[in-house]
């Protein structure tokens, strides 16, 4: 029911009302609707639950709802049953009748759907006992597992918009600003600029019309933290933006989301509409006299539009191209007006700081990096998913305690943090605490929070080449170092992976990397060399093996490897011959098989299929 809330007291009464309404549900089945789980078919699971609940006429007692990302994408679809918080993983529509019958009606557990600890082999009942969750500190994501992102009532029932009421009625804009400054919150989009200081620049800029922007143009391969916030709890971002606007003195806000995130766009639009209906957005918010409005703008999917000046150009309807700074957006941004841009996660942190205070926030994290940070943990790891950890935690804890180590029993080789322009960090530096400064010291960066784990079967030159290819395609092409520099670095790396590397290539790459860092116009070019420079720094021997010995130690670069069969290990099972697409692998019963090097296209299928490890790559 839409209603206008016109004072903080009304908001409180309404929150109580909503909470009371929620009490009528004896049980809530929360199915994860996040990116990973919906790919695993969570929408079908949800419909199965709804159907079953209706069939057994339980719909007045049991609520089935779709929530935002729970984070544990590896075991999707994840379903949590409240009030007991029983957590079922990898659930399928076929399992639904059993869950309803056993858990909902008989209040028993369905053992086989519970998470099984790979170490202790024990089944775990509750999500907060699963190691993946137990080592996290979920603040931005605290409500993701149980809130319906399409319902403002749900958000209000957990204390939503209370921070806004507090800011508007108990604090002056200056006090809000000081609070954010004191909290030590830093930009979660990558560069880590202190948020409070950024706000102050914009606030102090002359001009009556000011804008704020939420940067939701998350374009890193393998990263979906901001998406999960927008799809799981869009109201937290909107609340943060209104508080920010109040502190800065902005009149209008924009949420810039990439069009590839249709659900995020839909939910954010819906959230804005609902906030409008409730009088939490628009003219005279909560009767405070403060007016502010938000509009959603869709990006057309260019990586460079995550750069603030390019993003502003894109909102203005121009080509998404960065421009030189100064003037900084805080002085002259959107349509020449003072503009403040923050990342989705930064905005979502603001209500937390206002609610619980700067001191509480500053107590989490390290001396220079406060609070928590979300990461999307992907790659060759057992528990892929979205994690949120206090800053200062070591990479080892994230990868082994939360991530559950490397999949397939293989050995860890490197972790790349910070998206395509982050660096690769080797095993011996895993005990480094994760904060802005330490990661930059290692030649990587915090970035928006991508974390790609690589195992021993990864060739680091191939990895560097992949990221250079991505960046060469995503560079806007304006400045010479970025456009031509990345392209030439890609050429050199391609030559090395094809066995055409020259001795001087490593030093040339290093020189080119420095030029990219120093000479490029925007952050894209300035950080683009990180994957190359960090792999040279930590894995120089691999570069040397490729160039001098024409060998790929990881067995990845096709031009440098040959496949053969170890005659002693081969059991003549014929599996390799069966999977070989070119019939290069062949043999007779009771005789070791052979691979015809002429026919072999080095696809690696035989190696994967061989149970005895008889296929050798050299």
């Amino acid at each position, binding site marked *: 029911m839409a209603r206008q809330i016109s004072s903080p007291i009304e908001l409180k009464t309404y929150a109580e009302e909503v909470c009371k309404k929620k009490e009528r549900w004896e049980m809530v089945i929360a199915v994860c609707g996040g990116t990973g789980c919906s790919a695993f078919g969570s929408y079908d699971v949800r419909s199965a639950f709804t159907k079953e609940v209706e069939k057994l006429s339980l719909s007045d007692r049991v609520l089935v709802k779709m929530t935002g990302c729970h984070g544990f994408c590896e075991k999707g679809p994840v379903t949590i049953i409240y009030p007991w918080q029983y957590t079922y993983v990898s659930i399928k529509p076929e399992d639904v009748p059993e869950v309803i019958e056993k858990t909902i009606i008989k209040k028993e557990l369905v053992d086989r759907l519970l998470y099984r600890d790979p170490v202790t082999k024990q089944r775990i009942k509750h999500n907060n006992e699963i190691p993946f969750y137990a080592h996290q500190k979920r603040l931005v994501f605290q409500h993701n597992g149980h809130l319906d992102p399409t319902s403002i009532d749900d958000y209000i029932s957990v204390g939503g918009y209370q921070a806004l009421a507090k800011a508007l009625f108990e604090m002056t804009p200056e006090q809000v600003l000081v609070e954010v400054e004191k909290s030590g919150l830093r930009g979660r989009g990558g560069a880590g600029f202190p948020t409070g200081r950024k706000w102050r620049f914009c606030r102090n800029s002359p001009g009556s019309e000011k804008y704020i922007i939420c940067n939701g143009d998350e374009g890193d391969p393998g990263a979906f933290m901001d998406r999960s916030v927008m799809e799981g709890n869009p109201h937290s971002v909107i609340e943060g933006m209104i508080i920010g606007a109040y502190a800065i003195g902005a009149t209008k806000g924009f949420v810039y989301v990439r069009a590839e995130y249709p659900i995020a766009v839909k939910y954010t639009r819906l959230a804005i509409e609902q906030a409008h209906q409730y009088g939490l957005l628009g003219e005279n918010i909560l009767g405070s006299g403060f007016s502010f409005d938000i509009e959603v703008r869709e990006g057309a999917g*260019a990586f*460079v539009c995550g750069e603030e000046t390019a993003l502003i150009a894109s909102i203005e309807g121009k*080509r998404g191209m960065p*421009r*030189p700074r*100064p*003037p900084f957006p805080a002085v002259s941004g959107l349509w020449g007006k003072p503009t403040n841009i923050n990342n989705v996660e930064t905005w979502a942190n603001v209500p937390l700081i206002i609610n619980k205070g700067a001191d509480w926030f500053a107590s989490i994290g390290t001396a220079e990096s406060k609070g928590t940070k979300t990461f999307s943990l992907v790659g060759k790891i057992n528990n892929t998913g979205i994690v949120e950890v206090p800053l200062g935690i070591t990479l080892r804890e994230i990868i082994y305690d939360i991530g559950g180590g490397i999949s397939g029993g293989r050995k860890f080789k490197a972790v790349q943090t910070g998206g395509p322009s982050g660096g690769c960090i080797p095993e011996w530096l895993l005990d480094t605490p994760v904060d802005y400064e330490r990661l930059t010291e290692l030649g990587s960066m915090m970035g928006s929070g991508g974390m790609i784990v690589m195992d021993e079967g990864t060739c680091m030159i191939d990895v560097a080449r992949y990221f250079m290819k991505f960046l*060469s*395609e*995503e*560079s*806007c*092409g*304006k*400045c*010479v*170092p970025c*456009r*031509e*520099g990345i*392209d*030439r670095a890609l*050429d050199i790396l391609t030559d090395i992976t094809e066995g055409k590397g020259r001795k*001087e290539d490593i030093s*040339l790459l290093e*020189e*080119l990397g*420095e*030029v990219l860092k*120093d*000479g*490029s*116009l925007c952050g894209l070019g300035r950080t683009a060399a990180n994957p190359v420079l960090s792999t040279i720094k930590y894995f120089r021997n691999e570069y040397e093996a490729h160039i001098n010995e024409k060998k790929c130690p990881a067995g990845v670069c096709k031009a440098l490897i040959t496949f053969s069969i170890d005659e002693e290990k081969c059991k003549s099972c014929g599996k390799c011959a069966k999977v070989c697409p070119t019939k290069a692998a062949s043999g007779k019963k009771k005789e070791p098989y052979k691979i015809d090097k002429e026919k072999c296209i080095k696809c690696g299928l035989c190696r994967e299929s061989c149970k005895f490890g008889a296929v050798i790559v050299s």
Partner: protein
Amino acid sequence: MADMVELTIDGIKVRAPKGTTVLEAAREMGIVIPTLCYYPGLTPYGACRLCIVELIRGKRSSLDASCTLPVSDGMVVFTNSERVKKVRKVILELLLSTCPNSKVLQDMAANMGVTKVRFKIKDRGCILCGLCVRYCKEQMQSGGIGFVGRGTSRKVGTPFEMTPAECRNCNGCEWICPVCMRACRAGQLVEGICGGCLNVAVVETCPVCVKCSESVGPEGHRAYGK
């Protein structure tokens, strides 16, 4: 009199009007900073990055393009430090690898001591400095040409690859091109940018054709007497 700020360029204290750039201030002093995408009267663009200078901030220093860097009080700038020279040379190498036949670039290379290009040559015939685009838009108020595409596939073009109605056939795009490449391909320009050259009469003025932009016509360059 406009507000003045005081800054230090290459160790010399200078005063420059507020709102001007470091490049302008340095050139006023007679300091040579190479540029390609800069042209007085057009909006600074900061794309070629040849005009980079070293900016000292306390104990740290950074490089920035001087054509887009506004002067400010107490600024300390070095226009030709070792770091600047090193980066500039590599940028020039990159430029040469995209336009190896450009005389302007070759001259610059000779001046800076760049004697070889270590990168793969990919003759694109254009350094995408954007001078023609800005000239067309800002000086001719036309906007007939613009950028198409992204990254290495970025190029200067016209809408739908047709000569646009906005084109005033002024030939300015060819005249302003710093690498002469537009002009040197005049014969095929109709496929190149706007096709404006087709309306320009043949001018036969030069004694020995060095393929400059002066004698561009529908048949291309002509040496005197031919």
